[in-house]
């Protein structure tokens, strides 16, 4: 049986439980499970300053992206505009609250929480908040990171602008606005944020008691 010492040298595949000896990787290389090809780990590094900058960028564009209309149509003189939030409220108001909730969660709430969560994590590390309370907050944020990251679906929403615009152009004039641009920028900021973020690196800041 293995002693705790060997834990550091060995990792387990999360998909098939294969025991694999861990070794250092050059940057931009990903270790795959030799048995089932699941991506296991890469260089556990991310720049905290980079994360902070991307968080602030994302936070700044979040407001115009969600407050300004993302799509506008002109049908025989009547003009209609909508923000992302309004699309969710509109379907909800029609009685389709499951759909409204799904839209709201994946296009507004999850991205907002993701930005705030990463911002908070970076600040906890930067400000060296080591009390029991902050450590438990930090753990909780890391535990929920995967879920928030999965629920953020801005890339799909950006494609849906295009699909909707094409469909609506069949019977009306369609315009994109500043909101569309801001929303696309928000998508890009979060995309880069997610690529820079490394969960394993963030876990390394947690003090593990013996």
């Amino acid at each position: 049986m293995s002693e705790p010492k060997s834990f550091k040298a060995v990792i387990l595949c999360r998909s098939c439980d294969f025991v694999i000896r861990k070794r250092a990787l050059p940057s931009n290389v990903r270790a795959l499970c030799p048995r089932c090809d699941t991506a296991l780990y890469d260089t556990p590094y991310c720049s905290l300053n980079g994360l902070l900058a991307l968080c602030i960028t994302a936070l700044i564009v979040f407001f115009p992206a969600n407050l300004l209309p993302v799509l506008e149509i002109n049908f025989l003189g009547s003009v209609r505009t909508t923000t992302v939030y309004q699309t969710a409220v509109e379907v909800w108001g029609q009685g389709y609250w499951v759909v409204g909730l799904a839209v709201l969660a994946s296009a507004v709430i999850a991205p907002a929480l993701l930005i705030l969560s990463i911002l908070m994590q970076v600040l906890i590390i930067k400000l060296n908040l080591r009390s029991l309370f902050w450590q438990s907050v930090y753990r909780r944020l890391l535990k929920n990171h995967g879920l928030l990251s999965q629920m953020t679906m801005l890339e799909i929403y950006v494609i849906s602008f295009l699909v909707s615009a094409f469909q609506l152009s069949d019977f009306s004039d369609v315009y994109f606005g500043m909101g569309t641009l801001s929303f696309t920028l928000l998508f890009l900021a979060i995309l880069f944020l997610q690529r820079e973020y490394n969960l394993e690196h963030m876990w390394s800041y947690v003090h593990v008691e013996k």
Partner: protein
Amino acid sequence: MSKNDNGLPELIPQYAIAADEQANETPQGLKMGLCLCATCKKVNALTEQYCSRCHSPLSARNYASIQQSWALLITATILLILANIYPITLLTNRGVVTNDTIFSGIAHLVKSGMFPIAIIVFTASILVPWLKILGLGLYLSAISFNIPISKRKMMVGFHIIEWIGRWSMLDLFVISLTVALVNMGQLLDAKPAPAATAFALVILLTQLAAKVLDTRLLWDRLETHDDTN
């Protein structure tokens, strides 16, 4: 061709070395007294109750996950059939009301010559959900009924399903945008219809079915036969 589960571009696959290659039996963490934390991916001793790093409860194997996953999958299948039969939008155009199902919506796109958009909608609304359900069904059957299919291929398929599944949300985003914009009364008006809720639930349930499933269970069995390919 390797595909990583974040959908990021290809990186050079660097195969890690198996720890116990000299031993003929495949090294399972369970046999070596190790347990991976499902939450933070830290390796813990099997004897521990909680992860030393994130304090989540540890579970060596979740055998109930097969039944949970089957139940979610069967419910999702029924809902997906309903979502395909019932109308998903209700369009009033100059007083004429038409019910559009997912299929008729795509047929309309093809008729108006918007082929690229038709292909995108077809992929997101029909191909992806059905592939997801069939793929998960196959994966669960392989565990439950001992079907001899290459585990390695199954696992690659599983990761693709995990990643592509969320793209079904596209149709719901498009519907919500359309409903919010097209509201000019009798002249032109779009409303959601019952299949929209069914479709939203299909996405939720299939994502959950893939998430709860403990994929390690597939690899625990049949270890005597070597099927690395």
